[in-house]
């Protein structure tokens, strides 16, 4: 067998050597690529003749309709730049963008999460946007800063809380909870009434990630003791295992009381959303990006959102942070045009257009303020208190390990690992990323 492998590799290297020396080879290979270059040449010619209209590509992991108003606004505001929207599914987004950037390619404007922005900034893939960033509050721009420069402009903030069906709560005379234990009690009341308390698509690793982290945020990360956890974690000074155990233990009531069930592992996000929208479940954890979809399914539905709670009474907490950051590709051929687009986004009108499809979030731009829609009445105090936090945004280069956390929580739910093992596995993934 070994001989075979060797001969294969040998042959490969020899033929590779042949290739570079042999003239006739190139002719064969050149046929397709030469037609391509002429095509490209024609295209550029066409571009230059039609009034210098530049096309910039913008990629994002949410579908086009989640930023439709912004695109319409930009088409009007910056008429000499055409935006080509590229949707890449969330699960492929980093892969595709990373490979493209590594090859000196990629979209002109990139929507970045905190972790990937940091990584790309470190590799020099991104253009600093300090001037534009100056008009944003530092709460929004800090997570996109690297070595004194800011590399992305924060979009409308995102937050996730618990949507609830007002009618179901009212009909059954159920009060909104104010603490975690009350929340569990509310869920049990619904169970006794034969109503599914919480619709959850646990086939995805996201719901339990956010739900449990919200509890840990309320209980620990927001306290004086836990405030520096994110920073220490990023610097490898602390581990999750041994620190988070008691909180996750308490949070496990969600599983112990049958609110999260193993059956939910077979349900995906869309199906859970449908369950909630059609009134089959009283609550559903999500954020403004799902609002339109829920209402489209059931326009009569009356919903509001409540925050996550810890064991103590508080305003409650939401998981969230600056939305996707708009960054400019350093190797883009249309940097000017891309910056022009970013400048147009960095106006009150631009933020308004962006907000249009993300109603509920807030803008980090100075002077841009939006009314909170009715669907978020019960989280108003939490928002006003600034209780919006995204723990993994502080993990620096290891931020992508939040996905590991989510999948490890699935393992925990399914009983394949205990709390300490679960958290240790996350620590291991984080350390691996930090050591890269």
């Amino acid at each position, binding site marked *: *067998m070994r001989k*075979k*492998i060797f001969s294969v*590799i040998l042959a*490969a*290297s020899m*033929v*590779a050597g042949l*290739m570079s020396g042999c003239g*006739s*080879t190139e002719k*064969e*290979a050149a046929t397709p690529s030469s037609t391509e270059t002429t095509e490209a040449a024609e295209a550029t010619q066409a571009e230059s003749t039609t009034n210098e209209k530049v096309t910039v590509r913008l990629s994002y992991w949410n579908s086009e309709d989640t930023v439709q108003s912004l695109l319409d606004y930009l088409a009007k505001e910056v008429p000499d730049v055409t935006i080509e929207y590229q949707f890449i599914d969330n*699960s492929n987004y*980093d*892969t595709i963008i*990373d*490979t493209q950037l*590594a090859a000196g390619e990629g979209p002109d404007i990139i929507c970045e999460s905190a972790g990937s922005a940091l*990584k790309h900034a*470190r*590799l020099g893939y991104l253009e600093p946007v300090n001037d534009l960033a100056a008009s944003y509050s530092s709460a929004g721009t800090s997570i996109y800063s690297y070595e004194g420069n800011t590399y992305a402009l924060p979009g409308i903030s995102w937050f996730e809380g618990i949507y609830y069906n007002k009618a179901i709560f009212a009909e059954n005379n159920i009060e909104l909870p104010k603490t975690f234990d009350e929340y569990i009690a509310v869920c049990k009341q619904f169970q006794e009434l034969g109503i599914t308390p919480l619709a959850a698509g*646990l*086939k*995805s*690793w996201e719901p339990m990630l956010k739900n449990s982290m919200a509890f840990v945020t309320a209980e620990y990360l927001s306290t004086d003791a836990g405030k520096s956890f994110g920073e220490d974690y990023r610097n490898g000074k602390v581990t999750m295992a041994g620190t988070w155990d008691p909180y996750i233990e308490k949070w496990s009531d969600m599983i112990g009381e049958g609110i999260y069930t*193993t*059956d*939910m*592992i*077979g*349900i*995906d996000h869309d*199906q*859970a959303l*449908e*369950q909630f929208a059609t009134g*089959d479940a009283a609550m559903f954890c999500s954020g403004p990006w799902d609002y339109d979809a829920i209402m489209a399914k059931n326009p009569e539905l009356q919903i509001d959102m409540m925050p996550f709670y810890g064991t103590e009474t508080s305003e409650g907490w939401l998981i969230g942070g600056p939305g996707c950051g708009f960054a400019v590709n350093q190797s883009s051929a249309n940097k000017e045009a891309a910056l022009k687009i970013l400048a147009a986004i960095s106006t009150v009108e631009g933020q308004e257009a962006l907000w249009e499809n993300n109603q509920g979030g807030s803008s980090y731009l100075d002077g841009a303020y939006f009314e909170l829609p009715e669907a978020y009445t019960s989280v108003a105090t939490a928002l006003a208190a600034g209780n919006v936090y995204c723990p993994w945004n502080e993990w620096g*280069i290891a931020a*992508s390990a939040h996905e590991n956390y989510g*999948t*490890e929580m*699935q*393992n925990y*739910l*399914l009983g*394949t*690992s205990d709390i300490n093992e679960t958290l240790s596995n996350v620590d291991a993934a984080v350390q*691996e*990323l930090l050591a*890269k």
Partner: protein
Amino acid sequence: MRKMKKKNETGSLGHYFILFVLPALVIYLLFSILPFFYTFIYSFTDYSDIHIKGLNFVGLKNYVTVFNTSLMKVAIKNSLIYAVILTGFQVILGLPIAAVLNKKLKSKNILRAVFFFPAVFSSLIIGYLWNFIMSSSDYGLINNLLHRFGLETFNFFTADRALFSVIFTQIWQWTGWAMVIFLANLQGISPELYEAASIDGAGERQQFFKITMPLMCPSVKIIVVTGLIGGMKAFDAIYSMTSGGPGNATETVMTVMMKKGISDGFYAVGSAFGVCFFVIVLIISGFTNKIMSKWSESIS
């Protein structure tokens, strides 16, 4: 030049050989072998998404990492299970279906068409479709029907079942493919053999085991070898149904390669994993080839 002369002496096409092979070879070298060659080299460096220039040689470090990462071991185990079960069922189900559809049934053509139908589609779309059929919610066809009969929800995507659920859909998709290949083989077996056997008083079952089975060796070999290799490489169906979850229950070589080796940016470790995978596939195909030729030898 000297090489060409040599060919002139031995091959019947002489130096034209190179001209005939060249177009395919160039494309293949450029887009398959060269990338593989790079991957092989990267596997000995510290290449990662945050370290892309000035690569250092790190010896076998990445290979050690591969063998110490439980996720990668799980992935190889799952891929093996996937490949073996899928291939096994393709043979176990495909052979009898082919044998029956080789009989003079009135509806045999339409039956063949129905069984082959799923193989036409992309595994991606088949995955999305089954995702709905197997959902635990009321929108899932199977659980919808179960609930109708007052039965409990059957969760297809628990840690223990998810992998088998995906394999199940793939068996559904690819058994027809195997059937068609078995049928072709069956039609090549001369009917006289059966006539002779029935004169000798052999029953139908005996005929199946004594005549059909041994003579089916070539097609079984094709299905086993391509099935195992294809199963090891499977990506689309897993991607669209479970993306490796829940937890790590359905992580396969390809999903881990995509996640670790590319998304997370561990390019060098991913490359080492890929090389290991290549070796494993090489061993498997060599091994099955050996077994299969032993089988055909023992028959003749």
